């Protein structure tokens, strides 16, 4: 069933400030496989390397050692352009800080990944609008991001992560800025995404999230390695 493996990591290590006195290894010798439709949680205290591993798997940074295969293709050595293309076409990201762009409207934020894609304005808008409908943001499309509540901002971030119809969704500490009520809303949304057959990778240390029944696997991280 190898073609069901979307991402495969082999002996991944990441080193920052290599050769300098402040050299650190946030990720050490990690090997794992992510299969289609799986929901995987990377669990661990802060500083355990969850976020770094997530950005390696999400093709946002390159490993110092080891290989990352996306659909069987080693991406670690590919030029920047291909990594960008993978992120644009296959991945969606929900950041801890939401990373929305202030000043432009909610709808423009949701459409953000689609600007460099060769589709029409109309299609772009339709996709954004249907996602915003689904996430209960339809009345907010012309609002500025600053005027939204934390939960709404998160839903905008989720809509943005979904707008390019990604195979894999990466979520970094998605409940960090949410209260219990909003967190369980988020759980509902993630569950729905799983039902659609999307693969989800979550980095969190929030029990409310990793103790949910729809989670397939929990990988515990400490000091950059999976135990």
């Amino acid at each position, binding site marked *: 069933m190898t073609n069901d493996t979307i991402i495969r990591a082999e002996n991944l290590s990441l080193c920052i400030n290599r050769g300098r006195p402040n050299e650190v290894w946030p990720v050490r010798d990690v090997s794992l496989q992510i299969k289609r439709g799986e929901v995987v949680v990377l669990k661990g205290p802060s500083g355990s390397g969850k976020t770094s591993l997530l950005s390696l798997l999400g093709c946002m940074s390159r490993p110092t050692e080891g290989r990352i295969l996306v659909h069987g293709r080693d991406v670690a050595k590919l030029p920047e352009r291909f990594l960008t293309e993978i992120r644009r076409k296959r991945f969606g990201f929900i950041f801890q*800080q939401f990373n929305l762009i202030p000043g432009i409207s909610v709808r423009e934020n949701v459409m953000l990944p689609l600007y460099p894609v060769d589709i029409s304005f109309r299609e772009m808008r339709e996709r954004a609008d249907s996602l915003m409908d689904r996430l209960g943001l339809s009345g907010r499309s012309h609002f500025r991001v600053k005027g939204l509540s934390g939960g709404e901002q998160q839903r905008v971030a989720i809509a943005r992560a979904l707008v390019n119809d990604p195979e894999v969704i990466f979520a970094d500490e998605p409940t960090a800025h949410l209260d219990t009520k909003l967190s369980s809303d988020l759980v509902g949304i993630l569950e729905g995404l799983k039902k659609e057959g999307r693969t989800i990778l979550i980095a969190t240390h929030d029990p409310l999230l990793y103790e949910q029944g729809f989670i397939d696997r929990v990988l515990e991280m400490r000091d950059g390695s999976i135990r």
Partner: protein
Amino acid sequence: MRKHLKILEYALSSLWRRKFKSLGIIAVFSLIIFTLSSILLLTYAFKREAMEVLRGAPELIVQRISAGRHEMIPSWYGKRIQEIPGVGMVIPRYWGYYYDPSTGGNYTVMAAAGRGDRKLEMLSGKYPPAGGEVVVGKGVAESRFLSEGSRIPIKGSDGQVRNFIVAGIFTDESSLLTNDLIIMSLMDFRDVFKTGNERATDLVVQVFNPDEVENVARKIREIFPDTRPITRKEILRTYDTLFDWRSGMVLTMFGGALLAFIILAWDKAAGLSAEERHEIGILKAIGWETSDIMELRFWEGFVTSSVSFLTGLIGGYLHIFFFGASIFAPALKGWSVIFPSFRLLPYLNPYQVVVLMFLTVIPYMAATIFPSWKAAITDPDVVMRG
């Protein structure tokens, strides 16, 4: 194509969310282009008009120089010059300056030329003036509130005040040439300035063959080493360099405006804030390529500079050719008391417009694109941390 339009769309949204900053930059930028284009259009139109009308200037003028200063020339010089082969008529010119204490203006006083039988253009009234009469330029008439038939007192070098009757006034159309003129008869000129009967201000020398002008000038210098022949070519060259955009005031204003612009561009270049960097990181993380981000910055620079350039240029054109350079006039006027109104013909030098564009639009675009280059090629995972 669609992709480029969409990035343009995003660039516009991006500019619009910082409305005040963007509009402020466009306003300042437009103002700079307005100033620069006004200067360029004004000086070029000036120059072209001077070059056009001064083609009618005498082809050779002979001045006498004494101790390095312009001196009256004795009329026997003319007789000797007339003997040079190829020389036609030698016509003495009589002119000088008159400071009018009551207005503080300097007027140019001329004796009516020998060819007074010709009917004069752009004059209301009669010409040549008879004894006791003068013909004046529009500026003189306005500064002294003169109309045809009024009197104008002129104090001679003997201290006596003579009252002249205004027999004619040059029309406004000719102001650029006649604004400060007072033309009187030769008899009156000699009487007012006590120049004597044997001396003229300078001599106009007619040369039959235009190719011979330089030769004749050289011969005149040989015969009279104390003279300075001035050819029409030299007159035109004077005006060519006078209103050249590299000279004097033009350069000063141009330089000032350009400096202001460089400061603006520099500020823009150095001003890639942490916020902007973070934004570039977000765009990269969600799948924008480095080239897309460069294109975004390109559009931002293009929108700002093209709107500013066109607005400034339109403004400058209207300012110079429809409003008579009204904003510049006080500065241009300098210390002159009488000054002609500008009704310049809209001569335009496409080369200057292109130069202006290259000196402003291109550096601005470069200043917007380059700083984002470094940010755009860094790894996007910075947005994951903090």
